[in-house]
């Protein structure tokens, strides 16, 4: 019953996350937009779990664990970059640019 609306909301939230990653230059906000995309995908899993059985909810559990690990390591990397460069603007973090 709520499957169609849920998938639509999830599509909008995911696109907002992508737009945020493309728009912003602050690496912490880019990171938060990635979390937003992960949550949009979680909403898709939960909505489909209602139709296809509870396995989708288990996958959401795993996504949350991976997101927690990703946040811990990513924020540690951000702190290391800030200590090294004194900036969080991705335009100034261009060591790998050719």
């Amino acid at each position, binding site marked *: 019953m709520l499957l169609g609306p849920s998938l639509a909301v999830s599509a909008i939230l995911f696109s907002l996350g992508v737009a945020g990653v493309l728009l912003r230059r602050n690496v912490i906000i880019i990171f938060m937009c990635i979390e937003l995309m992960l949550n949009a995908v979680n909403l898709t899993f939960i909505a489909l779990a209602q139709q296809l059985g509870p396995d989708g909810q288990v996958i959401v559990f*795993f996504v949350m664990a991976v997101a927690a690990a990703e946040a811990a390591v990513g924020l540690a990397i951000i702190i290391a970059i800030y200590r090294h460069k004194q900036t969080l603007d991705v335009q100034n973090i261009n060591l790998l640019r050719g």
Partner: protein
Amino acid sequence: MTLVIFWLFAAVAIAAALMCITRRSAVASALWLVTTLFSLAGLFVLLDAQFIAALQVLVYAGAIMVLFLFVIMLLNLGRQTATDMRGWPGRLVALALGLLLVTELWVLSRVPVLAQIQLPAGTLRQVTEAHGVVSVISGPLFRTYLVPFEVTSMLLLAAIIGAVVLAKRRV
């Protein structure tokens, strides 16, 4: 009634996500993201995933966002004088790509789920009422998905060690 509450939560989630990607200050962005995550927890309850909704509030809105705010505070990013949005070419590219993506996903969400793999309506709710909210998840988690579950614990251990090593002053 359910549909009204659903769209209420959905509207709050989308509006807060929009605020999250447009605010200048990182703290404001983080707090709007917390609002989005709370509304998503409400949507999860409406979709018969009460346990995941509780986890969403505890793990995402609680732990992960506190970690974000902690790092923002640690790096002293509270007051941003200049905006960090890209210029107009970047904004137009982001708008075009975002609209393209939302159209694609919208069309995909119109594709009906195959009837052969679909459970009868209300099955998940019946299972939840029979076995309880937690056991709906813990059953498959500890039977079908036991190996991935153990691998997740290794992943978290690696993340803990990695975070400590990366954030240490001298490696």
